[in-house]
Every structure is written in structure tokens, then in C-alpha cells.
């Protein structure tokens, strides 16, 4: 134990992903994230998939350090593999994956070597929908709609107002697009390349990326200093 061991602890994140927003809808869970990986203040990677299916019943979305996310995917790979090897007809559902990840995150935090992520776990098993979140210090909870990072401040007020239990797929996608658009306008690390993923009893689908339409044609934006020369 010496300075060698100290330098292996995570002190700050390097390549980070921005917010993930997820909601429960009528048939399952809908999750959205953009595909950007920022290296400090530069947008280094523009095709990072931050939504991954885990096993048959779960979808995982992550924000924060990308390398720690890839490590988590390897842990989960091992977990699902061992589960499949039992070959007993049971498979790990979203609640179990959430519990496992909570233990992993909390234990790493106690060793002062956290996995610098905020994770969103969603899924459907035996007709029961589940949506939960766990972050780098081990805080975990489940709710009808969750968001990470700046999404908590910008997307959750909209979701608290407009979410209801019986959203159809189209309504859910529209709601998520609304949230991602506000994040695109107001989060500096957001990128206009969004991926949406859905998980239902039938299975997981990660849709191909698309970009959002933005509106910049307000007349006040055309000449902002018209009334106050010297400001902007």
C-alpha cells in the first residue's frame, strides 16, 4: 500500500456522457440518450451508444465516465453468463440487475474508488414494469420517470407535469423528444444525435439515431441588442 495504489483511484471523470431520460409507458419502458462523449469541453466522440440491453428483460442507460460504463457492462456480462449457465428457466430481471449494480456502486464508493456513473435500469418481467436509478455514491430508487445529471433539473419538471400511466408508444416518444430538446437547448454537453430504446415484455429494441428539429426563428433573436445597445 503506497502511492502506487493511490494513483489507481478514480479522482475525476475524463470522457463523459450527458443525461439519460427514461419513462414508464403503457407497454414497458422508454429510454432516451444522446450519442455524445465529451472529453472535458471538447466533443470528442459522437457515436457512443449509451443504451444497452442486458439479458432478456433489462435495458441499461448510463451517463458519466464512459470507461466505467464499459467496465460495468463487462461485470453484467459475467453476471448474465453465470445466470444462463444455471439453465434453470429463470433469468435475472430489472429488479435484480438494479440491486446488483447498487451493491457494486456502493461498495466501490466505500473504497473511495467509485465508478463515475449515473445508471438508469429499466425493464419488464412477468408483466411488471420496473424503472430505477443508481448513481456513483450508491443512491438508488425507482420511480415512474427518472433522469440523470442536468436532466433532473430540466426534464423532470416536464415529466412531473405531463406523465401519466397510459402513455402510448407515440405519446411517450413525443414526451421524451420534448425533454431531449430542452436538454439540447440548455445543456452545453448535449449533442443533436439522439437514440431512443424501448423494452417491453416481447423484448428490447434500440432504435437508430436521429436528430431533433430546433427552432431559432424568434424575432427577438434576430437582433437582440436592438433595444439595448452594448448588451447582447
Amino acid at each position, binding site marked *: 500500500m503506497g502511492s502506487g495504489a493511490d494513483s489507481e483511484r478514480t479522482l475525476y471523470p475524463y470522457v463523459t456522457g450527458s443525461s439519460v431520460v427514461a419513462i414508464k409507458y403503457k407497454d414497458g419502458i422508454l429510454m432516451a440518450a444522446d450519442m455524445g462523449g465529451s472529453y472535458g469541453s471538447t466533443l470528442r466522440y459522437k457515436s457512443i451508444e449509451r443504451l444497452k440491453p442486458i439479458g432478456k428483460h433489462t435495458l441499461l442507460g448510463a451517463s458519466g465516465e464512459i470507461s466505467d460504463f464499459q467496465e460495468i457492462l463487462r461485470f453484467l456480462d459475467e453476471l448474465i453468463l453465470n445466470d444462463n449457465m444455471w439453465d434453470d428457466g429463470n433469468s435475472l430481471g430489472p429488479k435484480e440487475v438494479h440491486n446488483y449494480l447498487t451493491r457494486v456502486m456502493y461498495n466501490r464508493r466505500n473504497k473511495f474508488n467509485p465508478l463515475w456513473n449515473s445508471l438508469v435500469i429499466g425493464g419488464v418481467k412477468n408483466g411488471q414494469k420496473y424503472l430505477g436509478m443508481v448513481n456513483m455514491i450508491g443512491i438508488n430508487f425507482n420511480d415512474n420517470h427518472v433522469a440523470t445529471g*442536468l436532466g433532473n*433539473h*430540466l426534464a423532470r419538471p*416536464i415529466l412531473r407535469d405531463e406523465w401519466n400511466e397510459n402513455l402510448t408508444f407515440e405519446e411517450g416518444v413525443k414526451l421524451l423528444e420534448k*425533454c431531449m430538446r430542452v436538454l439540447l437547448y440548455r445543456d452545453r454537453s448535449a449533442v443533436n444525435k439522439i437514440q431512443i430504446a424501448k423494452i417491453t415484455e416481447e423484448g428490447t429494441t434500440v432504435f437508430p439515431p436521429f436528430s431533433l428539429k430546433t427552432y431559432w426563428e424568434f424575432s427577438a433573436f434576430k437582433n437582440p*441588442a436592438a*433595444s439595448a445597445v452594448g*448588451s447582447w
Partner: protein
Amino acid sequence: MSKSVLDLPPKGGFNFDLCRRNDMLEKKGLKPQSFLKTGTTIVGLIFQDGVILGADTRATEGPIVADKNCEKIHYMAPNIYCCGAGTAADTEAVTDMVSSQLQLHRYHTGRESRVVTALTLLKKHLFNYQGYVQAALVLGGVDVTGPHLHTIYPHGSTDSLPYATMGSGSLAAMSLFESKYKEGLTRDEGISLVVEAICAGIFNDLGSGSNVDVCVITKGHKEYLRNHLQPNPRTYVNPKGFTFPKKTEVLSTKITPLKEAVEVIEGGDAMEE
């Protein structure tokens, strides 16, 4: 004898000479004074006939709500109002001061005040104090040149915007504006959007709460709707409310007026010099 240090002319801004002494006292255990902040949601938007300003009504002192129903929309001129977030004393003092300066200016020029005048006076003052006067303001009004809406930051920078939010609840309110604002809103649409944005701040931000104040300014007319919406009423567990219990039964009542201890003599002796 060197008098050069004492003869220096007074400089602008705050005098920080006592900071070192205060730090030393704090290290020895003196607790610093707490102050009233308006951890806040304030918004403004331009609609087709003018400007609508909105604010919540909670003033906090650290984790405690010091005032459940304070007024954050300050009067600047008959056609200009200003919402303030940040340290309550700073927003009050700065808006009061500029309001007086505008009044004097109106007497001097004989004209209605313009929003850019208020803007320039405020940003000059705040820049002069280099951000130590912690007032973040949303200034709105209608003058001869039309409706205007500006935000002013504690360090003195300003923005000119069609819709603006400030304060700790600004992200919650801005998320609603970004998703629902469009140009050419009518008065009712504008008021309902402002109310929705302030409610988003009230229910999603811990520093904002209580009621919604709205101020509508149009050409030649203003409406200050104090407590326009009260979404947090005091509720009692008992549906009949709270009544004081009657313990004793009144059998008889007898009222005796108290006798005066001092007799007042009209036209008595004059007091001694």
C-alpha cells in the same frame, strides 16, 4: 510624518479592510451572520401586447423559510417592474435606488422612463461592485420604443430576451418555457404559461415555494396580480378546520369598568419651565 496613506481619495465599491479581521474572528469560533436570500424562481416573457413578469413568494434563510409570502416583483416606474433573485437586501436596495433615480430623471426630462435607462443604471451599479451586490434581476416594461425584457446578472452583464428565467428554480421554469413558448401569445396564454413556469419552480425547486405573483405590463396600463395563484394552501387534518375547544361554560357575565387612576384637570397649572 507621512500623511500620504491617509490622504488617498475615497474609491468606489466596497471597503474590504475588515475581511482579514473577520476571518480571524471566524477561526476563533465567531459564527458569521446569516442573511435572507430569495432562493427563487423569477420569469418574464414578451407577449403580443407587452411584458408579463412572474415570481414565487418564498424567502429563505439557509434551510429555513423566513418569509412565506414576500414580494419579489419590485416597482421601478409606472411602466417598468423588476423581479429580483439573490440576496433579498441587495435586490430591494438596488431596485429602490434605481427607482428613485428614475423618478428624478422623469422630473428632469418630463418624459416617461425607458427600460434601457433602468437597465443601464442597474448594470452600472452592479458592475461597479464587481458582483459583491448579489442581485440577479429580470427587468421588464413597456415604453415608447415598445416592450422590453432584460436579465441582469450580479456581475453586471445583461441579456435582451423574448423569455427569461432567473434564480435557483430557473432551470425548471426554463424547461417549461423552452417547450411551450411561441411568439404572439395572447394575454391569457401568456399568464397561464408564466404561472405554469413558476409552478414548475415551486414544486421542483426547494428554494422556491408558496404562491405565484404575476405582473402584466402593456402600453399605458399595468396590472399587479399579487398572489394570483395560491397552490399551497394551509390544510388541516380535520375537514372543519381548527376551532378552539370550549372548556368552561359561561353561567353569568358581569362587566366592571376600571376606574381611572389619574384625574385629568382641564386648564390646570402650567408646567414649570
